[in-house]
């Protein structure tokens, strides 16, 4: 699945966040968007994940040469994890299994895939614990596991390691690298230049309302 954004602009209350930005993601790998606070990193991710529309320009997904329509089936092929994960008042297992349940997955499939994700996020021991009782780092790992369980073709991560400790940040980086190896397209934002260097195949910077490639 290829993502193409073409000449998009976005403004809030008359204040332009970015304008005339274009970008294509056509290979698997990790794409990192950087920029100062308020530069529009999160907005760009939300627009790419079809959760928000640009004021002008176009966001399109293609499979080969065929353009995919913005139906729920397309949205289900990608997911975005916010810094505020949005934990459900349920067990860790039920939180991770949510995406499978709403897709009508069978019991066995839910059990197998969710257990695998619990292992990947190192949350197996907390399987039956109320997810709200997890630490910030564990919640972030849960958010990523919950996103990965649905096997998205494109995974968006909005500052996945902001405000968590180094150990959890390392665990999350390991998960990102693991998924990169398995051929996933991961588009993430971060403030951490070193992290971007460690993970990224391509780094983009939002500067002066434009999108610039600084590594690729």
């Amino acid at each position, binding site marked *: 699945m290829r993502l193409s954004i073409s000449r998009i602009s976005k403004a809030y209350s008359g204040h332009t966040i970015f304008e005339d930005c274009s970008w294509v993601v056509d290979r698997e790998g990790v794409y990192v968007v950087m920029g100062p606070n308020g530069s529009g990193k999160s907005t760009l991710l939300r627009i790419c*994940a079809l*959760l928000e529309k640009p004021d002008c320009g176009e966001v399109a997904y293609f499979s080969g040469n065929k353009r995919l329509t913005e139906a*729920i089936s397309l*949205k*289900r092929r990608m*997911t*975005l*994890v*916010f810094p*505020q*994960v*949005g*934990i*459900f*008042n*349920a067990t860790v297992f039920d939180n991770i299994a*949510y*995406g499978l349940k*709403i*897709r009508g997955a069978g019991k066995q499939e839910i059990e197998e895939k969710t257990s695998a994700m619990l292992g990947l996020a190192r949350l197996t021991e907390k399987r039956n614990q*109320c997810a*709200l*009782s997890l630490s910030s780092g564990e919640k972030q790992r849960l*958010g990523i596991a*919950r*996103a990965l369980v*649905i096997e998205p073709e494109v995974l968006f991560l909005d500052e996945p390691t902001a405000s968590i400790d180094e150990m959890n940040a390392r665990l999350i980086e390991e998960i990102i690298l693991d998924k990169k190896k398995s051929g996933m397209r991961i588009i993430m934002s971060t403030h951490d230049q070193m992290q971007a260097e460690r993970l990224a195949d391509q780094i983009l910077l939002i500067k002066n309302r434009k999108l610039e490639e600084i590594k690729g």
Partner: protein
Amino acid sequence: MNSVVVSFNQALSLILHLDRELLSIILLSLRVSGSALFIAAAVGVPLAALMAFGRFSLRGLCVSLLDTLMGLPPVVVGLFVYLLLSRSGPLGFLALLYTPSAMIIAQTILALPIVASLSHSAIVSVDPVIAQAASTLGATPSQISMAVIREARYGIMSGIMAAFGRVMAEVGAILIVGGNIAGFTRVMTTTIALETDKGNFEFALALGIILLAISMAINLALNVIRRKGGTERQR
């Protein structure tokens, strides 16, 4: 003072010996209020969801109206249902006046705004990140609504329990539409009023004790629900 002690002892004796009349009155009370609550919850929770998620004009007015109806005086509801069900009223042909069904209708009208209004408050208080999380995971609009309602479950249960407390303790409306007919429409609150008038304090006291116990149980359940919802949220 001595007569109070004697009446109290006799009341306890009636409870301990599971007096048949006492039991039938308690069961009818639970049946009427339970049925009213069931209907109010079945209608009130979806109504709350509609007002929370629906986008229609006059939504704000509907919410305000429900909030206002929470304080409906029971006697006014009783009068309204009486006029509806009386022989010359629009629903007189149903011949429901002075039956448990009429009492259920009156109590449903009292419980519905409480359930709907408190459920609505619980649903709109859910952190928007929950809907956002469900949406990013590919949930359809109805699945997003269900995820939010599930998050609001403790608040919704609190609303249902609060409505149950209100209808169980209510006397005005069911006295008007039920008629307090012995063995047919006589419930705990109406019996307490009647037996006190007659000077039959031990029977009234026995029912009073049971009613208090039910109220305490409801409050206890409410506290457990609130604590459970609250502590899980705070973790």
